[in-house]
């Protein structure tokens, strides 16, 4: 065990921590290795065939969707974050909740609900016909605009969360200085606030865009051909795993390019404050402003949560009356919770060595491990599931058939969330505390247990919650890897929705929302303290 504490970039030897972190990342990279291995089997002409027949359309479809969703999410996320962080108005704390609640609804549920609502006998369809007296121009979601609407509503909350916490930190001195120099309010926003927000927006956009690139549920319900859907169709319809792997590799390169760009923009500018950050003071809104603010936030809430919730409640009521909520249904609820709790707990534990190593050693290996652990975010769910399936069948056939393969696939998919939350918490912790503990004779494990872990409790809770929320909603990997006859809520929603059994899909979706509420409360606890 090394006792050196000064950061060294290129020298490292394999401490137990490094070994452990490397093992975790190696396991997480199994699906990527699977993709690379399978793509290597593609011949030159096959690549050329893929290039001419598919790639141009897929690139255009995927990138235009990502761009549109990014724009939509920034519009909704930054505007709501600004109003909530900078104005004091009645119901402000409720508004924070309302902006985060859409995270409880999976993209495929959004897609299903909105296509149903927009049919000519759906609520929005009826409204349209009442307003325009015809259903001729009734909007249809099976195109890029529909996919944009759905993924924006399902994803803008990430932008809101990060922008909101960035706006909570005071920049008053800078703003006042600018005002004294004669800048107008608009100028202050463009020249001071927006540049300061840029790192937060960039980070949030990375999350949103990666979600778009890997989304399976919404695009397959809306039949919008992105990389992920096309990869799935290659695998499932044609049994062409090599073409699927080839397309996956292109998608991985695309995502990595995007991540590097994001890092570049984030690191180009840094702002330092010489004083302790103060909390931002919020200006009190007058009656008119409060009305306008709630008009905007209310519209967002209505579309991103109110309407879907009302739909779920009304169909769940039908299911309740027809006594369709039976023991089997509660079995799905139990299965979903079991899988999500297992995945979140395992992810929390295995992410720790990676985060610890990166935050403490700050060397090249740590950086590489941290990057490689993100593989779950850049590969589509079906591909991760397939990689894990093949690995288990070839290497660990005895463990196949239970929940192990499913839990591991979910951990790999959502490991980046756990690693990055814990890494961020570690980064804020000064190493001197740990050094003091060590110098007083405590061993590394004792120090970890008594000093480090209690100090990064918040980051660990966030990590657990984020993984739990995503694992609870996860569809494609669960569809492929669940044990025989083991149905979760997302699986049931998928099956019932494709059979148009709305009264069975709705209560399952409602249970996902209800199941996520307690953990969202944990996520927002900092918010309560601050407010």
């Amino acid at each position, binding site marked *: *065990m090394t006792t050196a504490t000064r950061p060294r970039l290129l020298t490292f030897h394999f401490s*137990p921590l490094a070994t*452990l972190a490397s093992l975790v990342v190696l396991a997480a990279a199994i699906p990527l290795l699977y993709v690379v291995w399978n793509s290597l089997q593609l011949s030159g002409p096959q690549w050329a065939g893929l290039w001419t*027949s598919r790639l141009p359309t897929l690139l255009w479809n995927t990138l235009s969707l990502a761009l549109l969703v990014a724009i939509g999410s920034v519009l909704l996320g930054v505007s709501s974050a600004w109003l909530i962080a900078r104005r004091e108005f009645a119901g402000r704390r409720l508004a924070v909740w309302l902006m985060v609640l859409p995270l409880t609804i999976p993209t495929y549920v959004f897609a299903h609900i909105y*296509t149903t609502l927009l*049919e*000519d006998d759906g609520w929005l369809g009826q409204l349209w016909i009442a307003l325009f007296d015809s*259903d001729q121009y009734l909007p*249809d979601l*099976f195109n890029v605009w529909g996919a944009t609407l759905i993924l924006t509503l399902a994803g803008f909350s990430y932008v809101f969360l990060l922008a909101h916490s960035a706006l909570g930190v005071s920049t008053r001195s800078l703003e006042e200085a600018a005002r004294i120099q004669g800048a107008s309010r608009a100028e202050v926003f463009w020249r001071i606030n927006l540049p300061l927000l840029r790192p937060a927006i960039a980070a949030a956009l990375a999350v949103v865009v990666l979600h778009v690139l890997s989304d399976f549920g919404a695009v397959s*319900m809306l*039949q919008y051909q992105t990389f992920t859907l096309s990869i799935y*169709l290659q*695998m*499932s*319809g*044609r*049994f062409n795993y090599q073409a699927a792997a080839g397309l996956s590799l292109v998608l991985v390169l695309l995502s990595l390019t995007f991540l590097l760009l994001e890092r570049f923009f984030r690191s180009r500018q840094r702002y330092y404050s010489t004083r302790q950050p103060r909390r931002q003071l919020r200006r009190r809104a007058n009656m008119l402003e409060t009305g306008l603010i709630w008009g905007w936030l209310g519209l967002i809430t209505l579309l991103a949560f109110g309407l879907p919730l009302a739909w779920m409640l009304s169909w769940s009521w039908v299911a309740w009356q027809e006594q369709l909520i039976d023991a089997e249904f509660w079995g799905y609820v139990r299965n979903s919770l079991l899988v999500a709790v*297992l995945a979140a*707990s*395992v992810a929390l*534990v295995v992410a720790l060595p990676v985060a610890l190593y990166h935050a403490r050693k700050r060397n090249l290996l740590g950086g590489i491990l941290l990057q490689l652990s993100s593989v779950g975010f850049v590969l589509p769910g079906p591909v991760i599931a*397939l990689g894990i*399936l*093949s690995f288990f*069948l070839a290497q660990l*056939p005895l*463990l*196949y*058939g*239970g*929940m*192990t393969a*499913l*839990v591991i696939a979910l951990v790999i998919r959502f490991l980046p969330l756990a690693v990055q939350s814990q890494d961020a918490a570690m980064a804020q912790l000064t190493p001197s505390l740990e050094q003091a503990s060590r110098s007083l004779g405590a*061993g*590394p*494990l*004792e120090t970890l247990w008594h000093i480090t872990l209690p100090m990064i409790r918040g980051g660990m809770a966030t990590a657990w919650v984020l993984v739990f929320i995503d694992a609870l909603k996860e569809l494609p990997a669960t*569809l*492929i890897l669940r*044990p*025989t*006859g*083991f*149905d979760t809520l997302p*699986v049931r929603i998928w*099956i019932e929705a*494709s*059979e*148009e*059994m709305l009264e069975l899909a709705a209560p399952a979706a409602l249970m996902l929302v209800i199941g996520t509420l307690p953990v969202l409360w944990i996520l927002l606890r900092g918010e309560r303290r601050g407010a």
Partner: protein
Amino acid sequence: MVLTMKAKSTLSALLLGVTLFSALPAVAGEALVIYSGRSDKFVKPVIKVFTEQTGIPVTLHSGKSTALLNKLMLEGAATSADLFLSNDAGNLQKGSDLDLFQPVNAALAAPIAANYRASDNSWIGLSARARVLVVNTEGEWANKLDSVFDLADPALKGKLGITNSTNGSYIAGVTVYMLAAGKEKTRQWLEGIKANAEGKVFNKHSKIVKAVARGKKQVGLVNHYYIYRHLAKYPEAPIKIVLPDQGPKDIGVAWNVAGVAISRHSKKRAQAEKLVAFLISEAGQKMFAEMNMEYPTRDGVSAAKQVPPAGSYKVADVPMAELGRQRDATLDLIEAVGMP
């Protein structure tokens, strides 16, 4: 170092615990496992009767046929599936070609006409669906259509409802037209219906029927039971079924079958055959097919009375097994045309 060892053992104990815990459900019971690509609501009632009669419990693992077939293939000998149930002969034959099934006893399969099962009995068709036209009876096209090839008529622009091209029934239909009428004619036909659909396709057959009933579309290409399902709910709906291509030189109606196969690696072959025997029996056939107003494949068992009786019209002369063998060629054709 000691502490490090301790750290390792603590962690590995933790991981082992989680692993064991999560491996628990793997200890499956005595239940027969069916990978089912058919709607739960049509399968569950039939299975329930089977379990009541034989005492053999059944676990349904539902999903999309193609995805489950992939799973079956990848799992190989490790699979827990005893049977595979699919709504598409194409999938069943694909499974046979991939050697995923074991043939059932020839005597057992005999009551099912040879065209509705694999040549080696590795899958058995249980119920058939006809690919037909649903036509609005109040519109100008009420009595003008009698062939699927009419659907490419440019006069139908904006008036035709079709599903998106990943739909299994749609793909199977195109395979039949391709084999019965030739590749070039089918390619031209696809170009025509693509233009008529104006880029807007439906994700569900039921929505096509609804659109035709409301007059938003004049005609749609669907499986026959969707029409009767709609009529059961709305008896007054202005729609009718048209059995296409009945002239002496025409190809006849495209059929497809739903069927069952026993997994090659099933360790419960005897019980699995019992289930197949139950599904082939007259009572089983009646129940399985009638649930969805399909045609029983067993001779002498009739379909629901609303449905045009089998044998009263011409069916395209394409062996069901071809739906699997020609699927990739069909997908190539569909993609070459760029069907949405």
